[in-house]
């Protein structure tokens, strides 16, 4: 008879999982704080050109002082022929317009004014201070950029931004 009996019946004790919710909440809060939502998924392909010393737009996004428009080749290649120079404009929150209107400078002005009307009520910057950020594909002919500029000039939306991928951060 031995004094020490092997306790082989007990096995490993169960893991205490009561702190699991804490971990999950921590993760949840992290992502809640760190994410900025994408306005919408564009229907055009945009490969941004590279640049250095660009301005970070995050603070403007947080204050809703910026609107994005996309310009590039349409994802649906068959429709490319419908647009000026084969590049389509994508304006978020616009009901799918007719192919003819989709690339038209009139729709830019209407879209921008509509955007201004749906801003949160605590945002009281005049239209000339609200940035319009043009996210254009590398291959876009610049005349299209200038068409957009003209449309914005007509409605006094005078602050624009040319989106690039900032490679100086690395």
């Amino acid at each position: 008879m031995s004094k020490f009996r092997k306790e082989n019946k007990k096995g490993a004790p169960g893991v205490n999982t009561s702190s699991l919710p804490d971990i999950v909440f921590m993760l949840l809060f992290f992502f809640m704080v760190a994410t900025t939502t994408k306005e919408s998924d564009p229907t055009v392909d945009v490969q941004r050109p590279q640049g250095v010393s660009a301005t970070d737009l995050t603070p403007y996004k947080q204050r809703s002082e910026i609107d994005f428009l996309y310009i590039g080749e349409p994802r649906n290649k068959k429709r490319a022929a419908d647009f000026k120079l084969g590049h389509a404009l994508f304006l978020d929150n616009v009901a799918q317009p007719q192919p003819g209107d989709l690339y038209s400078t009139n729709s830019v002005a209407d879209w921008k004014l509509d955007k201004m009307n749906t801003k949160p009520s605590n945002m009281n910057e005049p239209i000339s201070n609200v940035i319009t950020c043009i996210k254009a594909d590398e291959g876009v002919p610049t005349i299209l950029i200038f068409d957009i500029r003209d449309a914005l000039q007509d409605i006094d939306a005078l602050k624009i931004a040319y989106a690039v991928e900032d490679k100086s951060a690395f």
Partner: protein
Amino acid sequence: MAKRDIPEINAGSMADIAFLLLIFFLVTTTMEKDTAYIRYIPKKIDIPQPPPDIENRNIFEIRANAANRLMIRGEIIENPDDISDRVLEFYRINRSLSGEQTKSLIQNESYKGYEFPFYSRVTLDQIVKEIDKNEKDLERAEADEEEDFVVFYLDLLTKWQKKEQAIKMLKEKELVEIHPQAHIRVVVQQETEYKLFAKIHSEIQEALIELRDEAAMKYFGESYAKMSKRLDQDKEDKKGDGKKIRAIDVLFPESIIEVKPKG
């Protein structure tokens, strides 16, 4: 055959592994940021006016053609990375000249900086005098109800007030200012790719930030980029960056003209 108990796996270290993974991803992820060059479209003018006469020396013209080739001030450039150096040269070459040197060299065609913008120097007394004069002009225009003049003098007045602010912030005897007409002109053609257009803006921005950073370090001991980022994030400007940034902007104004390609 006797049924054997399957031993329970010890999962106690699972939490450690999960934490390790979590921390690894926390550290390594970079979230894609939206970055861009902010530019201003000039206000629309209802009555077309003839373009003012601008001396060649005050224009820094960057041309890009339909085949995406570059030309700076009439000279073909192969490498677009050279643009920023040329912009720096444009701003810097005549900046360190004293008042007398400027007067003598401005007519001297053999001087190497002849084809570049010259700088003017004003003292605080001169600025204050100009402000007084403009205030009187403004009052007179308001009394006569001549709206065009009111707008004109108001513009002028704010310009001089900015200079006053700047010279006080910089604590300099003289404010060294580039010729008011000196500007960078971007001329593209319809088919020029956006990639090159963005590259041009990238190079201009790089040069401007370098100039401004240098001045900001000299006067305020902090980089311009850092101050402007802080100002972007804090609209109320608790740290007083706005004044500093406006002072630097007076020294190195961002005057870029983008010319619409003719169709």
